[in-house]
């Protein structure tokens, strides 16, 4: 496919990797935030193409993984209502809640449906006026505008049986928390190209300045990521800490202003708990009061409960880039995508799932 295949050329990839090797003089730890980029890196073995001085650690950019356990329990509880149709992205179904998951709820007779777009959830609500349709709306800044437009459309169509269980998160506050942590070892970041397609990179300029850390907005194909890594290495070796844009074919400094406006009209910034990381102030989006009629938390008067993670799961450290998935004793033995202990093993953007898909044989052989 055009603008995709050429960025997967192995010759090109080896060339950029060789440039990185020529440029690097010291060890550097780099983090990609986005789970989509994690999968590209592991799938194409990009970490193995790099010189040994470059260490890649994976960040918290998997929306399914950071959705709080409590919110998953709320979705499962809602799915248990006989008049509710719970609509979700497919990744959420196997994510373990505190006792069960949506997949088992569905097997037990709950009306749980998988869609690829919030517009499909809206259509279900139009077609089945007798059902209360709740859309489990999770995601980063990339996804929030789509959910905002869907809510606006539901309002225009005066739908009374459609609501969102919304759990949106924002990337820059999470990067700030990682950088403020005394355990932080990340020296350069690949910023998520799709989030920046919507938001631009102005927020990242503040982070680069405050923490003197270089940030490169990167794309999703192997050559994109290698080039982003090369740009970070050049900055680090030259002692610069700026925001640069590798993904210029989709991202500009200001982002998609129409998408930002839709987000602001429907959502407001709130504090949000991240699964595995904890509460981060100003890191979430919730529906504005004007849209309370579309807010499942309000419509169904849902309450927060305190719940515990399974003790064996190390996903908290994986999501902060402190440990690799393969350092987990349960990896590919007691924890697999079929029977996950934690969310990163389930999601198509989860770091544990990436290692399970592409690396588990190496790990099991080594064990």
């Amino acid at each position, binding site marked *: *496919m*055009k*603008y*995709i295949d*050429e*960025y997967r*050329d192995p*010759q*090109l*990839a*080896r*060339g*950029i990797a*060789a*440039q990185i090797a020529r440029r690097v003089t010291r060890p550097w730890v780099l983090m990609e935030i986005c789970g989509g980029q994690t999968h590209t890196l592991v799938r194409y073995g990009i970490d193995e193409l790099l010189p040994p001085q470059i260490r890649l650690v994976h960040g918290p950019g998997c929306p399914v993984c950071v959705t709080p356990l409590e919110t998953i329990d709320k979705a499962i509880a809602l799915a248990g209502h006989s008049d509710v149709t719970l609509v979700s*992205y497919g990744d959420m179904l196997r994510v373990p809640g505190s006792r069960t998951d949506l997949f088992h709820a569905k097997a037990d007779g709950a009306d749980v449906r998988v869609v*690829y*777009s*919030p*517009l*499909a959830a809206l259509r279900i609500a139009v077609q089945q006026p007798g059902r209360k349709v709740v859309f489990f709306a999770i*995601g980063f800044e*990339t*996804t929030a*505008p*789509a959910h905002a*437009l869907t809510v606006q*459309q539901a309002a*225009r*169509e005066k739908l009374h049986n459609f609501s969102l269980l919304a759990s949106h998160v924002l990337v820059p506050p999470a990067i700030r928390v990682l950088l403020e942590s005394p355990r932080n070892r990340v020296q350069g970041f690949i910023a998520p190209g*799709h989030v920046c*397609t*919507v938001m631009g990179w102005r927020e990242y300029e503040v982070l680069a300045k405050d923490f003197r850390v270089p940030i490169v907005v990167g794309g999703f194909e192997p*050559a994109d990521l290698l*080039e982003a890594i*090369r740009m970070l290495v050049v900055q680090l070796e030259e002692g610069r800490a700026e925001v640069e844009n*590798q993904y*210029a*074919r*989709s*991202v500009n400094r200001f982002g*998609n202003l*129409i*998408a930002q406006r*839709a987000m602001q009209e429907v959502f407001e910034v709130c504090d949000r708990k991240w699964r595995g990381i904890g509460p981060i102030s100003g890191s979430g989006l919730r529906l504005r009061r004007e849209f309370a009629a579309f807010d499942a938390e309000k419509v169904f008067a849902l309450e927060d409960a305190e719940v515990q993670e399974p003790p064996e799961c190390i996903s908290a450290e994986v999501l902060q880039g402190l440990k690799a998935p393969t350092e987990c004793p349960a990896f590919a033995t007691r924890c697999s995508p079929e029977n996950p202990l934690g969310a990163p093993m389930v999601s198509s953007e989860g770091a544990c799932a990436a290692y399970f898909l592409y690396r588990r044989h190496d790990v099991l052989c080594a064990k």
Partner: protein
Amino acid sequence: MEENGSRMGRVQFGGISSLVSLDLVPEAQPGDFVLVHVGYAISRLDTEEAERTFRLLEEIGLLEAEGLDVLKTSSVE
């Protein structure tokens, strides 16, 4: 095409064709390349930037490929 007040467009994804909302990229025209996320186009690819990035990458890649050839043909004595 209009649907419930939204501008929709048919997009080909390497063999699969799907109807997506163009509300976030009103400038999109037939023949454009768009980035699609959960049923919404979120950007129109800048083809000039895409070509420029690729040429840059190719230059880096080729530069090194020549270097590799030299290595391949040299021998340890």
